[in-house]
């Protein structure tokens, strides 16, 4: 699990993790803790994290990144543009 600054987004933490094939990135400041991404992930990669963003919402963390198959259901089901998936080696 790596944590990097999202400089392009005016501050706020970006959480990311990859399993060598796929990387899941969470833009924490945009999350509203709706829980949809966690529920739609077919391999249960995501869990609700312990920390909250500046609005008080607890964003998900890709704790079981090893299980990620890169299906993107989290990215497509997130209403807030707060999570996305990319192939490792894309950036």
């Amino acid at each position, binding site marked *: 699990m790596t944590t990097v600054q*999202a400089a392009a*987004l005016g501050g706020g933490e970006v959480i990311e993790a990859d399993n060598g094939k796929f990387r899941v990135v969470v833009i924490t400041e945009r999350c*509203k803790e709706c829980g949809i991404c966690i529920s739609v992930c077919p391999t249960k990669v995501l869990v609700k994290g312990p920390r909250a963003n500046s609005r008080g919402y607890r964003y998900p963390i890709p704790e079981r990144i090893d299980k990620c198959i890169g299906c993107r259901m989290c990215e497509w089901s997130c209403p807030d543009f707060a999570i996305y998936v990319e192939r490792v080696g894309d950036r």
Partner: protein
Amino acid sequence: MKRIRKHPLDGLLRPERLPHLWCPGCGLGIALGAILRAVKKRIEEGYLRREKIAFIGGIGCSARASLYVDFDSAHTVHGRAIPFATGLKAVKPDMKVIVIGGDGDIAGIGGNHLMHAARRNIDLLVIMMNNMVYAMTGGQLAPTTPTGLYTTTTPYGNPERPINVVKLVATMGANYVARASVTHPPLIERYVYKALGKKGFAFIEIISTCPEVFGRHIGMRDAVDLLNALRERVVVKQRPHIDESYYEWEGGKFVLGEYVDKDDPSYLERIGVIKG
């Protein structure tokens, strides 16, 4: 070294206006993402040019989408996005004009304009996000609210049947009529991608979840619960018949699919503004 992370759609959004005002778990954000993915594909393949795309919204939660997209966009008045879009398209026929609105805006107060635009087969893509309630103003009855449900203006239960907008628009002769749902984002993307390539009037109804208002009214305020409840009621069909398009919440189904896909001459073709 700091790595910059950008959401794949940030280039098409006004990221300084995010997070958007939609409630946690609101289906509108899911739909907007799918719409923008389709638009992005059309731009990347060279079919559409970025500066030739416009988003027009009326008033309501859904229409706020026009505030978040980094294109020529308009936040017009309640129910009147379609005429605005028609006027724009008539003088700028090379633009791709996309109307995004809610069910109340497009089919309620804007119903007359929707009907005539479809009949006219004017070259527009109209996307109606249907969360079956007037959400922005706190949960009043919408023409799309299923029978029997509580709303703040039908506290004893809705005595009306919901309007079948898919059937209405199909009857008026639109070139493309489809229904999608926020439970199936890739379907939204596929239909929007296709509709962007159609001439004439293209209409997509996206059944959406409003946990904060609609969900709360039926005792399902949790976003995941409401999404799952909708998922149970949704059926995807390849070429559904128009007679299957009516829906109810209790005991009914939302049949998703492409109901109409044809290529009748469009309004602008007929008046000679664009070539057939």
